[in-house]
């Protein structure tokens, strides 16, 4: 189905009223002007889309539990004039601002740091803002992240993801802070280098959505949370006892051992975090840890 450029709206006929008051007249006049402006805007948009040498077709997933026409999930097509450098997010914003202001998606930073616009684009988890349209085949299919409940259009419920992140005690813990409040805990450059990639996670949820195991086992901590555990377990500023405690968390039934090294998380992570490698390394640590005690 295709909505393309929506039909232009008819200007509203003025309501027939007996002796309209000044205020009513003013309001009616305003409404008329507003309708005219709106019509102009849509005509301009249609014109632009026609004139543009190049347009891109987006097929966007739509769903809204509250609106009768959108209760049944469907795809809408939008034709967006293409400019060099345009991203999937730019195209979605264009479609929303020009054709349908109810088109709903999360986004904010436009620079791959807030993690809010992870989407399923042409069958793969990606950040809308970081994906150039020119790298994609047409029509560009944009869907919400799979394996997460859809709230509306492209917005998914992130609660489960946040719960998993919180399950690994995602905060620095140490018993030995330096005496002076102005003294830092020393950390070698090598150690910082070791944890560096793991600290880059932006909580976008792409990895979790791509993971077959997570899809089948709702309790599996998942790649992002395990990576978070890695970030602390490998930080030499935390003591051995705390590392022990961390390994116990990730070793539990729905922890690292569930991972079957399918690499899908590593492939989709927009921050290039070597997730599978981190999970493997924690498995090795867990084995060493157990050997120590058994």
């Amino acid at each position, binding site marked *: 189905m295709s909505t393309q450029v929506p039909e232009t709206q008819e200007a*509203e006929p003025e309501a027939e009223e007996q002796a309209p008051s000044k205020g009513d007249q003013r309001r009616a006049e*305003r*409404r008329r*002007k*507003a*309708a005219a*402006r*709106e019509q102009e*805007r849509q005509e301009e948009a249609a014109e632009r889309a026609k004139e543009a040498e190049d347009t891109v077709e987006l097929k966007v997933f739509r769903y*809204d*539990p*509250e*609106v009768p026409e*959108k209760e049944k999930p469907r795809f809408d097509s939008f034709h967006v004039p293409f400019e060099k*450098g345009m991203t999937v997010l730019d195209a979605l914003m264009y479609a*929303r*601002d*020009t054709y349908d*202001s*109810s088109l*709903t*998606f999360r986004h*904010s*930073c*436009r*620079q*791959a*740091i*807030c*993690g*809010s616009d992870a989407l399923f684009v042409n069958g793969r988890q990606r950040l809308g803002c*970081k994906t*150039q349209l020119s790298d994609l085949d047409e029509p560009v299919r944009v869907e919400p992240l799979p394996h997460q409940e859809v*709230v*509306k*259009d492209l917005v998914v419920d992130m609660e489960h993801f946040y719960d998993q992140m*919180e399950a690994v*005690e*995602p*905060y*620095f813990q140490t018993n030995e802070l330096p005496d002076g*409040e*102005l*003294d*830092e*805990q*020393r950390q*070698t*450059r090598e150690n*910082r280098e070791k*944890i*560096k990639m793991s*600290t*880059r996670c*932006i*909580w976008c949820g792409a990895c979790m959505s791509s993971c077959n195991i997570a899809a089948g086992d709702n309790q599996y901590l998942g790649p992002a949370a395990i990576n978070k555990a890695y970030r*602390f377990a490998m*930080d030499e*500023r*935390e003591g051995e006892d705390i590392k022990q405690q961390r390994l116990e968390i990730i070793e539990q039934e729905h922890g690292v051992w569930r991972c079957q090294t399918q690499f899908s998380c590593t492939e989709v992570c927009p921050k290039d975090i070597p997730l599978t490698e981190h999970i493997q390394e924690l498995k090795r640590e867990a084995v060493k840890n157990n050997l120590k005690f058994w």
Partner: protein
Amino acid sequence: MYEHDVIVVGAGGAGLRAAIAAQEEGADVAIVTKLHPVRSHTGAAEGGINAALREGDSWKDHAYDTMKGSDYLGDAPAVETLCKESPRETMQLEHWGMAFSRDEDGRVSQRPFGGLSFPRTTYAGAETGHQLLHTMYEQLVKRGIEVYDEWYATRLAVSDEERPEDRRCHGVVAYDIQSGEIAGFRARKGVVLATGGPGQVYDHTTNAVSNTGDGVAMAYRAGAPIEDMEFIQFHPTTLPSTGVLISEGVRGEGGILYNENGERFMYEHGYANNAGELASRDVVSRAELTEVNQGRGIEDEYVHLDMRHLGEERIIDRLENILHLAEDFEGVDGLEEPMPVKPGQHYAMGGVETDENGETCITGLYAAGECACASVHGANRLGGNALPELIVFGKRAGQHAAGRDLGTARIETGKRGEYEVGEVDTPVQPGEVGGPGDVAADGGTAPDGGATAELTPDECVERAVTDERTRVDALMSREGTNHATIRAKVQKSMTRFVNVFREEDGLKQALRDIREAREAYQDVAVSDPSRTFNTDLIQTIETRNILDLAEAITLGALVRDEFRGAHWRAEHQERKDENWLKHTMLSWNEGTPEVWFRPVILEGEDKTYEPKIRSY
């Protein structure tokens, strides 16, 4: 209705720090934020945090650099507080595990930054803000502080005594984005606004889409004066197509700017013969635009920033993130070619007037971070001075709101003590169009003068909730203009007329455009009928905030007929210390912006900062 001791609105660096501090004081605290905390724009900060940590450096030098950088419009008590407390607060982050870059000896690294007399910028690669935001959010999780995320605050619940100084803030009204519920949040002790900057007033900005200045606009309409709004910082190195920022760290590490003729123009055309590329941001931004205007720009639009000579190893070690940004958002490989850059809106020095404890003139209402103006940046912020502001003043605001005695503030707020009434000659009537109670806008304090002063705090919040429900119902049930058109129009006009270079005619044109947009806004309507995740509704309300702030920025720019810091005026090419060592204040008087002035405080703890020519 929800109820807590302290309600923090916003969960960027300032909001998180405020919440932690308030909780440490024993308060029951909650955060209301329109984005999940880790999505806040603080995450985008790249360069670093200024803190005098090393031998050879001192908070006094930091304060001196900051006063000079501010072009003598910073208030010394706030500046000195910032510089004194930044080392401890920065180390607090380290103790919370923040992954700072390290020196060979394992200590945190520091690097040079524009306008600093010592390399005192502490950093974590080129992703300092990301590390800071996540470190603080982790502490929030650890402490179990309650977060209402994806709740959009739309209005403050403030009593409506005649003088703002007599008013009290009892809470906020917010809208649950996921469910559409509108609810009151009663704050027994205080509300801390930490809603970030208003970058979306412009169309070429480094700021996130969510940075619409909501907190500033809400406080303004509730009666808190806003200060120094004309001072908008334009960052000299943003990518031309998107506004994505290329950190000052690149120039700090030795990156060089070239014009189309391959000239190192900062020196060759004499813009900053000593500091060159490391002159402060306003100087470099003007230099670049002058190059473009004089025909030496590349494609008549931008200049080149070159870091190739730094070598791959150093670039990857310290600026790796920059390589990704240039590649993903501009398609340029920074190891192989120079990066195109031009100035873009970056930071608002102005905001809600606060004292050095973060309090506004309205009892129980605080502001911290970019939405506040404690006046540490004056006319121009130095790079690396915003992040320390978040942690220092976020903490103080949180503590004070929770009831801790921080001593009497030296900075006065509201129309107290010495102030001067101002006048601006405007081509159109600025301000509101629909009169008090106007459904298109949040009416600020309750519309019927004095009535809510009698109400109990609970009733005051409930009253605000009712008003807000009426407004939202009206916006959703009528037909009319879409906000996107109005927003785009204002953004364009601001970028054209209220940019790095400003002249009287242009400023007046901007005011006319804003007026027109205001009138169009009277017919704004939300066309998405759904209560679930209605971003159409949110953006409609945000657009109203953009309108009020665009106007405030332009009015400030028009009234200040001098050249100071980031504020350049074609007709006034000198800094006029005899007239203008004062802050521009704006009060929302029943919908009409009122301009007045307050002298800057140059007396510090044991010295007075004498205005000097700023040369770098």
